[in-house]
């Protein structure tokens, strides 16, 4: 992870370093004192140099968020000329402090195209934070000097605080966007847009590793206290007391493990004694281990998808005497059960350039007028309580949600696998494709993205359900079908998945996918370790006793003083016969 300023820019960076050394203390002090940007062009020069090198490609040379990459990015890069910054310690609508800007540059925003910048020096980040403030005239007005809100330190999270937080979460309208279980599936979720009219999705509170402002309890508390400027996320600073905001923080904290997503590369298929019964649904899978696999955009074949809404899927797998079954789950803010989808539906090339997925652009506030809860909630820009929230009318969608499991058509011999995106001409793959507008899955055989043909043998059956922001889709197939690769206990089978979100008009190549992972069928009877352990221990014990017995027999008769002496008689060595 080397990161060097070198080569043609070394003179520039040397210049920058000198400037920083000379002016750093004076610059940052005076800027902070003014609460907004200040400083001469020469003082800002180091930040400008770094900005043009590392930031302008997305945020634009003018700071307007229209850099080269912007059309492929979602969320869009920040437009610095508006003075609206999401992650702050200052009140809603206010400018961020210098430290706020430094922090977000250092840490980046997870699961967006804003990376962390751990390799820049403190001076460089500070210079950059100063320079960014020059894009908006708001920073030069002394009246706008940012004043951080009080963010008291965290009380201990308890069962009571989590329960209280859950109650407050429901009472204060959080459910409207983030959903009853926090999966980002509230009724208003599909209607949300940011201040610039781009569709925006509420955070999935059950996946803290995706939180833009960071995943610690302090981060969650800060976001709830100060809101996210430019987005529908309001500030609850005045609506809720500190303890209440901490209680909601504790509730959100309890929704996912602090350790992160725990991505894996193998799905372990567990043997079950009872026959797999699709009518029993997810209850079949209680004994199976959950494997979480990361979803990435399909950015290899035209037409590309740069920001699939699903960032991960979980997979569980079981097999009985005849069949194998997989349960795939992922979070989706709305179920699209109308329209159509397919692995080879064509997509016009222009859709790649839109950046933000085209959704239903209603643009209403998540909070209805009559709602009592966020009375003090302030929102920058538009009035959040102006209009009644759109009811989840469930308009007919053009494209439905869909999911596909991909396995090689033949068990690979050796290391050669089919191409991970729908196979290749010599190495086809089977797709178990479930268009969730239909009652059952279909089978396709694919020899690459351009050569996909239906091949429905009727072997693959399945059921799908959508509940509280989560799709649960079960596929079932015979272990050894008439055509298709058989599953055998103790073997690894390559497996890959694709997920389509109909709401974001994903279909065909526009989708989220995984690379190849492994499906391992765990043998029904795992050999117990006890037998070999006892055998090993007894063998070693026997050898030990034999040696000790021999030594005692050989030397016990000799005088102790002789043994205690420095020398032993010839033949006393441990190795070799006496």
């Amino acid at each position, binding site marked *: *992870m*080397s*990161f060097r300023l070198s080569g043609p820019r070394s003179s520039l960076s040397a210049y920058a370093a000198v400037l920083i050394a000379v002016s750093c203390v004076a610059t940052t002090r005076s800027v902070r004192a003014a609460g907004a940007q200040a400083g001469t062009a020469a003082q800002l020069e180091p930040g400008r140099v770094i900005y043009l090198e590392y930031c302008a490609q997305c945020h634009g040379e003018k700071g307007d968020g229209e850099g080269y990459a912007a059309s492929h990015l979602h969320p869009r890069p920040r437009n610095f000329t508006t003075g609206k910054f999401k992650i702050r310690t200052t009140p809603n609508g206010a400018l961020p402090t210098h430290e706020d800007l430094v922090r977000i540059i250092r840490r980046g925003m997870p699961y967006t195209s804003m990376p962390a910048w751990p390799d820049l020096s403190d001076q460089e980040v500070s210079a950059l934070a100063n320079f960014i403030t020059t894009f908006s005239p708001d920073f030069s007005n002394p009246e706008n000097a940012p004043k951080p809100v009080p963010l008291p330190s965290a009380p201990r999270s308890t069962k009571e605080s989590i329960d209280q937080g859950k109650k407050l979460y429901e009472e204060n309208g959080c459910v409207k966007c983030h959903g009853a279980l926090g999966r980002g599936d509230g009724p208003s979720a599909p209607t949300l847009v940011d201040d610039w009219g781009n569709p925006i999705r509420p955070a999935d509170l059950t996946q803290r590793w995706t939180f833009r402002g960071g995943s610690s309890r302090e981060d969650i508390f800060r976001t709830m206290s100060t809101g996210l400027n430019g987005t529908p996320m309001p500030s609850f600073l005045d609506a809720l007391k500190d303890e209440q905001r901490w209680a909601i923080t504790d509730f959100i904290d309890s929704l996912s493990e602090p350790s992160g997503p725990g991505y894996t590369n193998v799905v372990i298929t567990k043997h079950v004694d009872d026959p797999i019964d699709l009518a029993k649904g997810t209850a079949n899978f209680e004994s199976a281990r959950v494997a979480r696999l990361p979803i990435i955009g399909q950015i290899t074949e035209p037409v590309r998808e740069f920001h699939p809404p699903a960032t991960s899927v979980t997979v569980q797998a079981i097999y009985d005497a005849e069949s194998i079954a997989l349960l795939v789950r992922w979070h989706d803010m709305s179920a699209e059960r109308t329209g159509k989808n397919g692995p080879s539906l064509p997509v016009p090339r222009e859709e790649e350039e839109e950046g933000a997925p085209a959704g239903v652009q209603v643009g209403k506030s998540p909070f209805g007028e009559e709602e009592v809860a966020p009375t003090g909630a302030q929102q920058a820009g538009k009035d959040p309580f102006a209009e009644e929230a759109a009811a989840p009318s469930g308009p007919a969608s053009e494209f439905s949600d869909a999911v596909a499991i991909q396995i090689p058509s033949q068990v690979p011999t050796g290391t050669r696998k089919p191409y991970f995106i729908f196979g290749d001409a010599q190495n086809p793959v089977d797709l178990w494709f479930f268009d969730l507008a239909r009652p059952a899955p279909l089978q396709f055989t694919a020899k690459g993205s351009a050569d996909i043909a239906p091949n429905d043998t009727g072997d693959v059956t399945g059921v799908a359900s959508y509940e509280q922001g989560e799709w649960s889709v079960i596929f079932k197939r015979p272990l050894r079908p008439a055509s298709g690769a058989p599953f055998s206990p103790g073997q690894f089978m390559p497996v890959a998945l694709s997920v389509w979100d109909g709401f974001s008009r994903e279909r065909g190549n526009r989708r989220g996918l995984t690379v190849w992972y492994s499906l391992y069928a765990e043998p029904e009877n795992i050999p117990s370790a006890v037998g070999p*352990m006892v055998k090993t221990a007894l063998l070693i014990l026997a050898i030990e*006793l034999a040696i000790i017995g021999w030594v005692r027999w050989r030397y016990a008769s000799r005088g102790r003083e002789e043994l205690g002496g420095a020398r032993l008689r010839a033949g006393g060595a441990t190795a070799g016969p006496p």
Partner: protein
Amino acid sequence: MKIPIVLAVAVAFGLLRFLRVKLLIWAAAWWIGIYILLRFGFTAPIPSSVITIYMGIVSIAILAYVSSSQERRDEISGPLIRFMTEKRYTLLLAVAVVAIPALAAANVYVRMNVSIEPPLFSRTVHPASPADITVHDKRIDLDAGENPFRHLETSNPQEFRKHVENGRRVYYQNCVFCHGDTMSANGMFVHGLDPIPTNFHDTIAQLRETFLFWRISKGGPGLPDEGGPWDTAMPAWEKFLQEDEMWDAVLFLYDFTGQRPRGREEVATK
């Protein structure tokens, strides 16, 4: 080498020397010291099978040394025999007799419960390129060819900067998602990729510009089998980009990382 570990082992040996310990302790110390050096002393981890072979050699060497004269044999066997025969050691002996099989059994348990790892495919990262390729119906000679815009660097620096800037545009519109903003293979999709993308800081100085052009234009599917073309997410960029755009992107990669491409002469002399 990890200097603190090497120093710690050296200090331990010095201490043993200072204490004038017995030969048996020395034999054990050598065995343990070399094991620690092999296992923890190197920056790149050594495969455990190799360590096993080395430690086998070390064991034989120590055995040969301690049994090379009567005096040494006695010095080694004396304490062992006393330990096994004298009454005051009986309790310790009993503990050892139980503990050693128990440890061996624990080892068997650990070995039988290793987590399930999918079969590993060791791919060749930079396999040899073909002599020529065809991109957009045009034959590109990878052996004798050059970046058609490289000569501008000296003949027309202003025009050269334009090409680099165009390469920058191409990079940040297409490549940044995997290779990352700083070209350190830290793009936003890296956590979902295997193999991970190339880190340009580490690699491109050893490669020719035509090699990069081959990798960019033909992508993962253009790799020979030893490169694992089925696993890598590198697109065949000829599907998205013009030839000039790919050459410009190559210029930008070298410009941003401050590296120089490997010249043709070097290849010829190899």
